[in-house]
């Protein structure tokens, strides 16, 4: 992805989010699907930790979902 494309995505995304957030969303009683484990952003913590460690030790990028520090001498 070029820097220009990234900038466009960010600008459009920020515009959509800032103008649209107030009209998005659900009422508290409509959260049945959202409360499911497979809809939790950190619902697979062990899998994520093991995968992050694997990718941290084999690739030059890490983090993004959370802080990028590795606490590991493997890279």
């Amino acid at each position, binding site marked *: *992805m070029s820097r220009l494309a*990234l900038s466009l*995505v*960010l600008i459009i*995304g920020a515009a959509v*989010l800032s103008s649209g*957030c*107030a009209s*998005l*969303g*659900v*009422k*508290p009683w*409509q*959260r*049945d*699907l*959202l409360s*499911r484990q*497979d*809809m939790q*952003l950190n619902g697979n*913590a*062990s*899998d994520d*930790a*093991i*995968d992050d*460690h*694997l*990718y941290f030790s*084999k*690739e*030059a*990028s890490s*983090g*993004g*979902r*959370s*802080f*990028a*520090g*590795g*606490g*590991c*001498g*493997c*890279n």
Partner: protein
Amino acid sequence: MQLKREEGGVRRRLIAASCALLSASTGRGEEVPNSGIERALNDWSLDSALAYYHEDGRVQVIEPVVSVSKAYGDGASVGLNLTFDALSGASPNGASPSRMPQTFASPSGKSFAGGKHTYTTAPGDLPEDPHYSDLRAALGADWTLPLERLLTASFGAKISYEDDFYSGSADASIARDFNQKNTTVSLGISYEADSLHPIGGTPVPLSNYALFEKTGNQSKDGAGLLLSLTQVMSRNWLSEVNLSLDRFSGYLNDPYKIISVIDAGGDVRGYVYENRPDSRTRRSVYLDNRVAWERSSAGLSLRYMTDDWGIHSETAQLHLQWWTAERDKYVQPTLRWYRQSAANFYTPWLFDFTTPELSSASSDSRLAALQALTYGLKYGIKLRDKLGRESSEFNVRIEYYQQTQENGLPGPGALRGLDLYPDLKAILVQIGFSY
């Protein structure tokens, strides 16, 4: 006397009360065995996994992970996690393959004279230290604390120990809900301090490998910033976007990596230790989307990352999940695609021992242009307690990872025709249990 009578009365009442308590607890015990243990388990949740990672012809790792957490009624939670890694096998030392046998010294070696501190790579093979091993133990803790109805603070800390690497980190975040808790904005900071104690000492950067010039311990530290926006888009769609910035400075080299020095004919003249810049700043944009249907869900995450070493990377990960009608079993396939450009100081070899303008150089393949694919499959079974409530889960996961280097320089002279950039193929098998 009055006192003695009173003591006797108290004693009788205590005995009577004790008998009543014992009989009552015995009665409850008959109805619900181990109720104390069950109550404790109901308060805490446990997530554990045991992973086995095996690279084709290289290292293997056994990694158990255990985390326990407790959620309180007011939204607060605490958690502890413990990780062990036991790594062994062969690890590339950074040198290029050659038409001739190549002899290297282990990190603790002080000469190339034979013995247990040397190893020899056969012609055409990628040089790898066959005796690579490491043990790591890491302990982390986190604490989430509601400050007000819509304001939450989170804190985390982690320590990690290896023979040659100690690390400590801490982070703090604050999150604010808006729009009937459909929108959450959070801002976090982190700090990490690492101490490096390379086996055999820290090599002098870019020094001649044959001279065994080593110095003492090193350190590095880093700070990070993470801004996150989570938005409920609809009844079945959740979206998150994260912006992160971090900067590490200090000793960022891999002390065990060397670079081949070759001549124009592709013959090896020797080796030098690598050297990387002493700071690195990374920026990333991360987007995660989750969509749920009655018996299935999908997650798509995208990440773009760039740093001042000239590396740009893109990552896309898709996972799908299907449940049985009873919602007691699921299957989850995963596909991940990753691509990165090379660091601007990456080079597979050098042509001269002394290049005055050369300040940084590394042949570490992890800094090369590469592409990677991961195929994964997970199967989980929900287990129910005797009251029929969903209480625990057992799962098994398998992943296949393949990494291919891109745009590798063609080898000059004698290196022509050799597999200079072999693929990395690995498999991960994991079993997990959560309660």
